[in-house]
């Protein structure tokens, strides 16, 4: 079975996700459930912990690629929530990861707080500031993620680190990618490292088995886009609008043209971010994009913990509700015409 082949040895670890797809899927291509699948609940240890060593992402084909191939074969979009590590603390971050996994997230982006972000809008910058005010550090983030992704823990979808280049450079690129890989990350997004400067980090990421995700902006001319596509792996992060991250009313029309053009240039999955916050926007992207990234709208819920003294449980529930709606929209199959 081709579908199952994508997963190989990781099948057991992903059992909960396989179950989810099987239950909601109508393709008839879902694999037979393993004895364990359907029985693992949040917080429980999966029965087959011994596969831990085989789970390390160090194969030519990354877990990110696997997620997209599986969803593409089902003609569904990937839902990729973004949260900030350490906002307001790492315990909440790990609880959020679990909640987002339970909300059917296919990949989760974890933002590393940075003192001087340029690409991020006010909501995400404020979350970075909240985390940095609590003295969050990179080693603490890695330790928390390592604990959350250890084989004995409930499985999480592939994790992607969103990091300013300053943070990577300070640790040393080789050391950073190794530590990220060991913590359980599957990929890196470095929004202020344009493709022109990314060669060295891309090589090191490749060596560590991590995808270095490249970004394409609405302002990117075709010849630049072609160069970027050549250097990319995992998926292409397509910025929907010129500007910073943040919630926006609607997605611009030029985005449609760019996505259609990119489809003629690459087989890499296309994920759209910056300004995606409502299920209707996901509907608009169906057939054009392979995934949607939702950041500020989710982070907004978490901000309430600090800003309005909303209880942690309520804030996580609010974020999970939005995530569930967005995931449902992303996973909806196109209506046959």
């Amino acid at each position, binding site marked *: 079975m081709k579908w199952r082949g994508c997963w190989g040895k990781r099948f057991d670890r992903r059992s909960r996700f396989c179950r989810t797809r099987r239950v909601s899927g109508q393709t008839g291509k879902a694999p037979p459930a393993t004895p364990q699948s359907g029985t693992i609940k949040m917080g429980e240890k999966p029965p087959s912990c011994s596969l831990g060593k085989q789970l390390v992402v160090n194969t030519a084909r990354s877990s990110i690629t696997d997620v997209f191939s599986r969803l593409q074969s089902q003609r569904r979009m990937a839902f990729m929530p973004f949260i900030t590590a350490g906002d307001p603390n790492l315990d909440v971050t790990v609880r959020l990861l679990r909640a987002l996994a339970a909300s059917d997230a296919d990949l989760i982006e974890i933002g590393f707080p*940075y*003192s*001087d*972000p*340029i*690409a991020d*809008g*006010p909501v995400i*910058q*404020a979350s970075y*500031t909240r985390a*940095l005010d609590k003295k969050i*550090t*990179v080693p603490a983030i890695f330790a928390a993620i390592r604990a959350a992704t250890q084989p004995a823990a409930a499985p999480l979808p592939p994790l992607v680190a969103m990091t*300013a*280049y*300053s*943070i*990577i*450079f*300070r*640790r*040393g*690129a080789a*050391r950073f990618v190794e530590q990220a890989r060991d913590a359980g990350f599957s990929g890196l997004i470095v*929004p*202020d*490292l*344009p*493709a*022109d*400067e990314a060669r*060295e980090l891309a090589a090191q990421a490749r060596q560590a088995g991590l995808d270095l995700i*490249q*970004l*394409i*902006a*609405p*302002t*990117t*001319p075709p010849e*630049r886009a072609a160069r*970027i596509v050549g250097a990319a792996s995992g998926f292409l992060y397509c*910025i929907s*609008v*010129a*500007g*910073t991250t943040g919630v926006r009313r609607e997605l611009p029309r030029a985005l449609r043209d760019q996505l259609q053009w990119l489809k003629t240039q690459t087989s890499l999955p296309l994920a759209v971010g910056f300004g995606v916050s409502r299920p209707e926007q996901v509907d608009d992207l169906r057939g054009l994009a392979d995934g949607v990234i939702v950041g500020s709208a989710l982070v907004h819920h978490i901000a309430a913990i600090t800003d309005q003294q909303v209880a942690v449980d309520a804030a996580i529930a609010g974020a999970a509700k939005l995530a569930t709606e967005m995931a449902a929209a992303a996973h909806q199959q196109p209506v046959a015409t």
Partner: protein
Amino acid sequence: MNASLGNPPAPSPASSHVPDAQGRFGEFGRRFVPETLMPALEQLAAEYDRARQDPAFHAELADLFKYYVGRPSPLYFAQRLTAHCGGAQVYIKREDLNHTGAHKINNTLGQTLLTLRMGKPRVIAETGAGQHGVATATACARFGLNCVVYMGEEDIRRQKLNVFIMRTMGAEVRPVTSGSRTLRDAINEAMRDWMGSVDNTHYIIGSVVGPHPFPMIVRDFQSIIGRETREQCLAQLGRLPDEVVACVGGGSNSAGMFYPFIDDRGVALSGAEPGGRGTQPGEHAATLSFGVKGVLHGSYSYVLQDADGQTRDVHSVSAGLDYPGVGPEHSYWKDSGRVRYTPVSDDEALAAFSLLARLEGILPALESSHAVALAMKAAANRAPEDVVVICLSGRGDKDVYEVARVLGQTI
């Protein structure tokens, strides 16, 4: 790349033929910005390349410098300061006499002409103490461009006079309330605005910082300072100076002053860094003296940051030097050994501020006072036939409230 300083390689002589097409000053510079900005930077680099080869562009800028700014600024022999130091002859390059009272106007006029060539109707800028904001508002008023200046909320409160001047000239001053609410957040905010407005907006950055081609463009426009100084030395003294001293925050007046002397190996070049009130992190803004190599605001240079790559808080009595980074060409000059950078404390700068006022009747900006303090030490250690030139980058009117406050006086 090595994240730590380690053992620096043996310095190779600094070249004046930098940066290359990728914006490299040796290993420094380059572009670390979101993809959204890359096309705008390429457009700016291409337009600047065309402008540089266009005699009409140079003629228009020269005309503005002469009739609008009042250039050339004098090279003045500071007789009583010389006697006070008891060593070398001290000359002062009077950038404080420029229109708007500082060197900043050299850059904003040049970049405004570039904005017009690119057909963009709107300009944005960041400002700390407000000098670059005023110079940008001035140039935009002169050419009828729409102007928005980002300024930290904290700085707006401290620099009411410059805020009023900018608004009077028709600029919109937008308070920045994120992060530390100072210059570096104003730069972040301006970059963010630019990400969403690159189509119709040019960002006039105020120093030799940021992604390529900004460090080169700002240096080139400010190089009028060093070119004039060089010619004036030859005309007035019949020779080149022995040492040239300028203050370094982001480093625009010093880059403009030093650059034309880079190939004159006999001329010592000295940068005065804001030494603040101590050598511990947070007590100073002396990036080249105490910093590490890293990435900030789109370029690779020395920076003041912690072990995680987070920018550190900085301090200087002078708001214009209160910046945790420095232009990449200065990092190149430091590592090559061509320029020597020395921290000058708040107290030394304040003493120089008062001394220059009393001895020469010149009220220097607190930024420039750092250069005065360093030059006085240099002059004292030199022979009477030697010549030391100070770049007096701006006048001190804007600083009188702050100086009075620090000295415990009321105005």
